[in-house]
Structure formats: C-alpha cells, structure tokens
C-alpha cells in the first residue's frame, strides 16, 4: 500500500455517553470507552442493543445526553456536527449518490473540500486502483453489484483521509461468499491504512475476524470489552458466553477443593456450593468408559468436514455440544464418555 494512504491514527474517547431518545426510550446507558489510535474496535451485540446509536454519537449524527463527551485525540468534538468532524462512514445500504458515477462519488468529499481538480482526479484514481475499482470509474451506481458498491463506499469514505472510519454493518446486505471476501479486503485495508476504525456488527464471526478489541453490548450496556480471545475464553458473564460461539453449561458441586460433576470428582478451587460451569465444545473430549467423567447418548451428529459436531445428552442436565474428529463414525443413539479438563472450566456469575 502506498505511503500516501497511511492515515493518522487518532484515539477516540467516549465519556459518559448515554442516549435517551425523545419519548424517553433509553437506547444507551452512559458509556465510557477509549479507542486507541489505529485500533479496529468492533461493537457486537444483538439487534437493538445500541450499537448504531453509539456509532452515531461518535460520528456526530446524534448528540449524547447532557454530560456526555466525545474526544478525538485531545479535541473535544461533542459540539461539532458530523460535517466538521472529518469522519468516514460506511453504511449497510451503501448510501452511494445515485446521480453520480463511481468516480464522482469518490471525488465528492474532495470536491466539498475544494481540492484542485487535478489533485482530485489523481487521488480518486489512486483510491479506485487501491479498491480494484479502476475499470468502473465511469459506471453508474446501478450498474454495480452489492460488493462493488460497498467498495465504492469505502473508497469514498477513505479518500478524504478521515480521522476515524465508522462502519455500520457494512457486510450485512451481501451474500455469504461475498461477505467473506469483502471482510478480508476490509481487514487488509484497515491494517494497511493504520486508521482508527469502529465497526458495528451483529455477526460474531465478523467481530472475531476484524476486531483488535470487541465491545460486546446488551440492552444499551457494555457487557464486556476485550480482545477476541478474551471474549471467547474469558466471557464476563453468561450473556457474552452464549452470544459468542457455542457454550455448554454443566451443573457442579464444589466442596473442599473438589468439584463433582455427575459421578466424577475433579480438583477445583472455589467457594463451596453449587456452581454453574461453562465449557466450549472443543474443550470437551471424547474418552473411554474408564477415563471419562460424564456418560451420555449421542442425540445428533452433524458432519462438518473437518470435524463432526455431536450433541450428547448426559444422564441429567442440558445437552452438550462436543466436537469429534471429522472421520468419527459416531451416530445417533451411540453411548459415549466425555472428559473434562478442569483448567478449561469457567465458573461465571
């Protein structure tokens, strides 16, 4: 990527940014968050949890409730409208100007900034090349596919060298295959440009793949902030655990440094009493009758190629999802034993 594309990495700070819409609906509880310069942060959560609202507060399309502040670097931009914040925006619906060609769309921000025509043309061309859109420069928007449109939208947002790039579910409108290829493209772009980026999605796969850090949100609150690994392996609560990936729940009893799960007893540190334990499918292993901790019956087996995903019903408690080898011949009705590694068990509040 040419040097001229490397952008300033501006940190962003949200201080007590809450949002109450007219009519009294609390969309966002007051939120404090620091986004590091050059970082890609992903807001992840179910629909209606306040992701877009947070993004729009950063963009300057919504004002935070009184008391909230938005800082770009050292500058307090809370009072600035979006047109004076120098942010790039990419929407799910592309939002390209239908009355302009691809090149005119990309040139728009430069034209507004009164960049001289020659300079403008050069920068537009560079950006179109970077996005592999060179051959489409003269096309009308309705002559482009969804993936091409979103690349034009990215080019249009980036060509003005914004201080932060804000993306609201940019891949949601695309079909699965295209989504993967454009996600890789966005990843390459964000790493290459070194720009601070805020990415909103409800898709945990996208969040894990793109985020330096993920902000998991639920009902207008931040449930957890962390790297994809932290979110996956150390979920702060049951909501996060269930939202990201597949999580099994096991009931256990802790007493005097041991944990009983079913008939098995494992070493354990923790206060005495009943505990609910979480464990990922890949952290449960199939074992023999002698060394297994839990016995169960296969209720379903789904062949996924690289592995076979089993749903195992233990004698009591909820069904467990376990991954077996792809070539496993296990099927419905087979009796299996599972081994639990106590180090991989999570007790969450």
């Amino acid at each position, binding site marked *: 990527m040419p040097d001229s594309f490397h952008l300033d990495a501006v940190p962003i700070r949200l201080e007590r940014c809450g949002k109450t819409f007219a009519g009294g609906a609390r969309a966002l509880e007051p939120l404090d968050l620091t986004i590091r310069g050059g970082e890609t942060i992903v807001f992840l959560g179910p629909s209606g949890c306040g992701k877009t609202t947070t993004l729009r507060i950063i*963009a300057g*399309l919504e004002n935070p409730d009184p008391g909230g502040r938005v800082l770009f670097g050292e500058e307090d931009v809370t009072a600035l*409208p*979006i*047109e*004076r914040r*120098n*942010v*790039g*925006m990419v*929407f799910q*619906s592309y*939002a*390209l*100007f*239908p*009355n302009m060609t691809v090149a005119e769309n990309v040139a*728009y*921000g430069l034209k*507004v*900034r009164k960049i001289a025509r020659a300079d403008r043309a050069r920068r537009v061309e560079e950006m179109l090349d970077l996005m*592999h859109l060179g051959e489409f420069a003269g096309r009308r928007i*309705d*002559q*482009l*596919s*969804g*993936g*091409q*449109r979103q*690349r034009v*939208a990215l080019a*249009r*947002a980036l060509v*003005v060298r*914004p201080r932060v790039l*804000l993306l609201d579910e940019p891949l949601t409108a695309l079909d699965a*295959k*295209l989504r993967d*290829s*454009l996600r890789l*493209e966005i990843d390459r772009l964000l790493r290459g440009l070194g720009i601070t980026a805020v990415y909103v999605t409800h898709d945990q796969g996208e969040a894990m793949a793109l985020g330096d850090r993920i902000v998991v949100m639920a009902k207008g609150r931040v449930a957890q902030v962390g790297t994809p690994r932290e979110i996956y392996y150390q979920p702060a609560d049951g909501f996060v655990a269930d939202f990201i990936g597949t999580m099994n729940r096991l009931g256990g009893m802790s007493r005097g440094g041991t944990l009983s799960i079913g008939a098995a007893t494992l070493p354990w540190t923790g206060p005495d009493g009943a505990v609910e334990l979480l464990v990922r499918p890949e952290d449960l292993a199939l074992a023999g009758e002698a060394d297994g901790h839990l016995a169960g019956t296969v209720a379903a087996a789904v062949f996924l190629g690289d592995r076979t995903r089993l749903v195992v019903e233990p004698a009591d408690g909820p069904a467990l999802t376990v991954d077996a080898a792809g070539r496993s011949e296990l099927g419905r009705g087979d009796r299996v034993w599972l081994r639990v590694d106590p180090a991989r068990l999570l007790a969450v509040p």
Partner: protein
Amino acid sequence: MSACVQDRPLSHRPAVRPPAGPGRTGEPLRLAALLAPAAAVFAAFFLLPLVRLILIGAGGAEGWSAYLTTLADPGHLDSLLSTLALSAGVTAVTLAVSTVAGLFLVRNHFPGHALLVALLTFPLAFPGVVIGFMVIMLAGRQGLIGTITQALGGGKLVFAYSMAGLFLGYVYFSIPRVILTVMAAAEKLDPRLEEAARSLGAAPWRVVADVILPALKPALISAGALCFATSMGAFGTAFTLATRINVLPMTIYTEFTLQANIAAAAALSVLLGLITWAALAVARSVAGTSVAAAG
C-alpha cells in the same frame, strides 16, 4: 479480491421477447375488437372536435395563414407572452414554496401536523371561480390587505383585479398539489444519503443541492409541468377577477363571444393547446415518468 467471486450487477434487465408461435394469429384481430369502443369514443370526443377546431382556425377569410396573422396581432401576441410569463412565474414560485414547505412537513412532526397537511389539500377542491373570489376577499377593494394597509396609513393596497391577483390565485391553487407531490417524494429519500454527504464534509445547503434536489428532480419536473399547464389554461379565476386581464384563455373567450371572431379564437386555442402539450411532453421526457395534463 472479489474478482474471483460471483458478483454480478444487481440490476440486470433480462430482454423480454414476446412469445411467438402457432395459435396466436388471431391475436391482433381480437385486440382490435377490444380496442374498438375506446377508439370510437376517442374519435368522437377528442379527435373530431380537435380536427374541427384546427379547420375552423383556417376557415376564415385568410385560410391557413390565419394562424400566423392571429399571432402577428400585437394584442394576441402580448396575451400569449404574458400568459407564458405568468405561468412560468407561478410555476417557479410554487415549486420554491412547495419544496421548502413539503420538506419541512416531512422532516418535522409537531402537534397538528396531520390536520395541517389535510387542510393543505383544501384548495384542490375549489373551482377557479371560488379561488378568484378568495383573492378578491384578500386583495380586493374590500379586502383584508387593503384594510390593513389603510389602517397602517399606507393607503389602500388593492391588486386583486390584475395580473398580480391572478398570480396569487394560481400560486394558491397550485401549491397543495405540488406540496403533496414533494412530500410523497421526500418521504422516499434515504436519510443515509444525506448522512453520507454530511460525513464527507457537505454543509446543509450542499446536501440540499447535491443530494435532496437531485432526488426530488423527477417529482419537481412533473409537478412543475402540471402547474405550468394548469396556469396556461385556467379561466375561472381570471374571469372572476376581471374580464380585462390579458391572458390567453380570456382572449380566446373575448374573441369567441364578444367579437364573434371564431377563426381567431380557434387558432389561439390550437396554439394554447400546442404550447401546453409541448411543455408536458418535454417534462415527460426529462423526468422519465408519466405526466398528465389536468385542470
């Protein structure tokens, strides 16, 4: 990159070819039979009178050249030009007022909003005579404006019985229809487009010029063409305000009833029809939507 992925343009229009084959030879005949009643009505009530009108225009002592001499008459030419100017002015003012008001009404919701929108459509229900009557009540000799200016010591301002009164009446009559068209179009605007433009640094006026107006353009053109055509042909209001107002429909009426100059009246009528039709045709081709003359 995604060059390797199936990523086709979203809007591909497959070529539609009419199915051909045996068993369809009777089709044109049946179509003609079905169309016959409509064609008869069209001929009887539209084509025949029009042809007759055109012939009458050429039926005077001068024959076909009457069309030219009619226009060469300074009174007639003046009437045509002032009607064109009036209609263009009414269209421009109506579009400006209605665009601002229509956008405002779509973007802002306040108590009484629905009632106001409902009230706005009210003038549509009035015939031209009533509009004229209202202009007189507003700006006539006993009108509201005159009373107020007199009370303020500025002398009685009366303009109902002139082009200005007619202008006011036509604008009043045209605004509701155009506002409704603008509102319908403005409701379909994608707010993300405006937000995208703003994120790129566009000030509010630029967003209007670069995003909103281009999106409203087809609606504005068709509404403007209708407004223009209606103003060209309106008669009731002019007749109510004063018989001396020099607009084309009025001139036609005078030539026809008072001067019994039937050939000139017919020639002017054909001319009026042609101009209005041309305005609508141009609008139709520019806007790409169907625009029908009305009023």
